[in-house]
């Protein structure tokens, strides 16, 4: 039997190890939390899920091609927004890796214990479990961040079950087209909001200067040949120690305390 390229890819993944690989890929996006890995991982995951469905349910190649196209366009839009963000994309999670790992393991163990046994019609239990797992990882991404970039990835994962079941359960309704348009529109909206994001705080650093010396008028670092020593800045101790706050001057070798700050964006 002649297989389409989509079905060939699906045949590789529609095995026990292939399904486990896809499930691990979904979990790795949450755990690693790195925007490049999220792009690559979600693209592989969504294309893989689409191929598995095409193989197991004999979806027409045109529908699968449409799914692949919308996935690739959506991921490209998100990737381009991250690439062209003027000061670097904000992707910080509201949790560290330990909490993310705990959340994932809690989800897994809760699923294991409760075992709802939900099964989509015409889909096997393993397929259904994979789709639900991908959607749960998407929800976890959405709940752990306010970053539009990762929210976009989360929404794409959340759309994976709809993308898979629509052409199987309602083959003649053209719902796959709507789901594809929805993926592109959501990715476009998230990419737009990513580009509109303000400069990340992590990319700002403090520039310190003495109180009586403006930042722009700091003395040149080049050594001067004058015999007169350069004026030393007045050192004021913090008010925490009022008894020691007598006027004092610092030696040139002493580090200068932070008395006036300004914020400058890193180029």
């Amino acid at each position: 039997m002649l297989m389409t390229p989509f079905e060939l890819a699906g045949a590789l993944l529609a095995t026990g190890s292939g399904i486990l690989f896809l499930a691990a890929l979904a979990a790795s996006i949450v755990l690693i939390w790195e925007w490049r890995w999220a792009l690559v991982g979600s693209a592989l995951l969504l294309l893989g899920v689409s191929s598995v469905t095409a193989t197991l349910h004999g979806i027409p190649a045109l529908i699968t091609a449409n799914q692949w196209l919308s996935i690739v366009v959506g991921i490209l839009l998100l990737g381009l927004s991250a690439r062209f963000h003027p000061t670097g994309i904000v992707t910080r999670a509201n949790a560290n890796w330990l909490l993310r790992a705990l959340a994932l393991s809690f989800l897994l163990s809760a699923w294991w214990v409760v075992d709802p046994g939900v099964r989509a019609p015409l889909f096997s239990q393993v397929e259904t479990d994979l789709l639900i797992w991908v959607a749960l990882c998407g929800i976890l991404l959405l709940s752990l961040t306010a970053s539009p970039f990762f929210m976009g990835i989360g929404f794409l994962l959340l759309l994976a079950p709809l993308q898979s079941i629509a052409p199987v359960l309602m083959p003649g309704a053209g719902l796959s087209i709507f789901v594809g348009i929805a993926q592109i529109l959501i990715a476009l909206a998230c990419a737009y909001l990513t580009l509109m994001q303000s400069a990340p705080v992590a990319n700002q650093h403090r520039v310190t200067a003495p109180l009586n010396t403006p930042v722009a008028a700091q003395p040149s670092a080049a050594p001067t040949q004058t015999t007169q020593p350069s004026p030393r800045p007045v050192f004021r101790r913090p008010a925490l120690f009022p008894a020691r706050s007598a006027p004092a001057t610092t030696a040139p070798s002493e580090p200068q305390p932070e008395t006036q700050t300004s914020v400058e964006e890193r180029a």
Partner: protein
Amino acid sequence: MNPVGAVGLPFLYLLFAFFGAATAASYLLRAWSRNVGLAGAAAALLLAVWVWSLDLSLPIWVLPIGGNVDLEAPISFAGYSLQLMAVNAPVIALYLAIAALALLLGAVHRHDAAFPAQVWLMLAGYTALTLLVGAPTAPVNVAPALLILLTALGVYTLYGDPVQANKSRDISGALRALLPPILAATLFVAGGWWVEQIPINPQDLTITQAAGTLLGLGVLLLLAPFPLHGAWPAASESSPPPATLLISLFYQLAVLYLASQTLAAYPFILRQTDWAVWLGALGLLTAVWGGVAAVGANHAGRLWGYAALHDWGLIVLALATPGLRSWTLVLFLFALRTVSMMTAAVGLSAIKQQTGSLEMEQMRSIGLRMPWNSAAVLLGGLGLMGFPLTAGFAGHWAALQSLAIVDWRPAMTIAVASVGAILGFVRLARLMFGIQEARSTARESALTISVAVSALVITLLVATTPQLFSTLITRALAAFG
């Protein structure tokens, strides 16, 4: 429906051509956003009145220049057909009226140059969703997927003008509105498949139970009760008030219409599942959470959002016992909600324009300088809680009475929760009208005063004579009942 097919030009071609032209013109002429907005508001209002008064028993419209326009002729593409019918015409008129309000607000307060174009685009989308009467499968199974597209388009409207926008704000609220339709669309597809299995084995009750559970759960998710409510209070805080007003009312009206269509098409959702119990419980939780959360709000926009959430919870609760009486109450509450939200949005837009922020700390003594708009904020917000002498009072009182007849405890719980939100508005009023440090030197312009006074007059008129809505609700019941 015209039984002999289209006689002349289908009216829907003209309607969507008008929407397309209005979108393009509003975008191209965005440099004159105020004039474009005002013209658009007038056009939308006229169209709303015209659609509302259409007599579809005479579907052929003979043009004076010759030629006919068929008002009921469907337009079809790829198996999907749109048609104007007596049951969906009132909903279209309501969309147009809401769009007119939003355009007027945006024009008066110079909200966003691209806002009029976005309003027309959203209006065209929601109109198409409502007019959808035919599809390769049942239209209600496809509608949630279309709602995802419209909600995704609404993100741009909620974000607002990229030049004026404060980029450091939390913008996730606009995106989180996507969560309910995405989750619901999957359930509708699965439920639709089960519905198609019913004729194969009509005696098997498990099929109808499975279909009813999935579809009922889908409608429940679309209604976005607690804990899926998060998008709207967040959007009320971070988005411009006209945009929040437009997108939230469009979405909620579409969901209510979809719920009525689903319940009418699949009555087994009510008979064979615990849908009504879940809806009642979640509606009660939503109303209570809206009231409780409003107590601690320190942002006037978020306070408005929580008040609207409390009101929405009551609407969801009223839906729990579907029937003609229930839909009458739901539509009455929704009409009053529109008036109250519009009044509050008028005041909030003016204050935000003058102070640049709706943080409560920034609003100290603003009531002494902008009394009319401050009064609009308070009266509109309190209307959402059903406070006496506000627009929402009659609706809330009727809902609590009908609820108390069945069980007095939920009615009492909602009344107590609404006191919490009222306290939030009392706190806001103390800040606004207290003689404290006068930080702001903002003043109301004559235009904003006239708009605020008009909104206040409408609110007080509705508060004192709520029977004004009788005709509107009777007509709209044709679509929902």
